[in-house]
């Protein structure tokens, strides 16, 4: 595809609901990243995949957060039993082997937990 796409763009959830956020990376990009961006802050790393392997999940804030990329392309970030503190923009990025370290970001999903 032309760029990284994410869906939904906006999500309102009631506290305690489960949500699933989808990311479609740039075609052929082997690495996929999830970041969380609070209002007025820089993105914070959550987790990262190389193909289908989750190589680093050190940034996931709790066991309510789960990410998968079963076929090495599309990824889903799932948040169970959402809390108000989960309200943020969730950014997905991808990079290729020849990208020289640069990551290309999607538009983000803005999650609001009421």
């Amino acid at each position, binding site marked *: 595809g032309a760029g990284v796409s994410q869906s939904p763009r906006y999500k309102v959830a009631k506290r305690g609901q489960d949500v699933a956020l989808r990311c479609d990376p740039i075609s052929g990009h082997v*690495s996929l*990243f999830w*970041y969380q961006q609070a209002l*007025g*802050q*820089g*993105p*914070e*790393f959550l987790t*990262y995949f*190389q193909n289908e392997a989750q*190589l*680093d999940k050190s*940034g996931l804030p709790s066991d309510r957060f789960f990410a998968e990329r079963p076929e090495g392309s599309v990824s889903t970030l799932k948040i169970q039993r959402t809390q108000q503190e989960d309200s943020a923009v969730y*950014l997905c*990025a991808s*990079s290729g082997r020849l990208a*020289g*370290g*640069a*990551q*290309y*970001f*999607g*538009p*983000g999903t803005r999650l609001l937990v009421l």
Partner: protein
Amino acid sequence: AQTVTQSQPEMSVQEAETVTLSCTYDTSESDYYLFWYKQPPSRQMILVIRQEAYKQQNATENRFSVNFQKAAKSFSLKISDSQLGDAAMYFCAYRTATNFGNEKLTFGTGTRLTIIP
């Protein structure tokens, strides 16, 4: 752990003038990448410029250039001939050059740039 510091929460510049955004970082590694990303209001993060630490030459992309001082661990962004479309939040980011298992970006807190017409 690596840290990235942007000490200017907000900056403003007159249209057509030049502005410099500051970034410092802390690392014990010798090989890494540094980036500047731009995030316009309610729009997605865009890569502005990229620097490889082993290259002494400063990166340049049109009106955007960096001043990379490896010994001082400083990586500032200069925007020449500022345009209204440059208004955005600018983030400095660091990534180790090790390719396997450690590709995450570490971001600074950002500098909000306002362009004055």
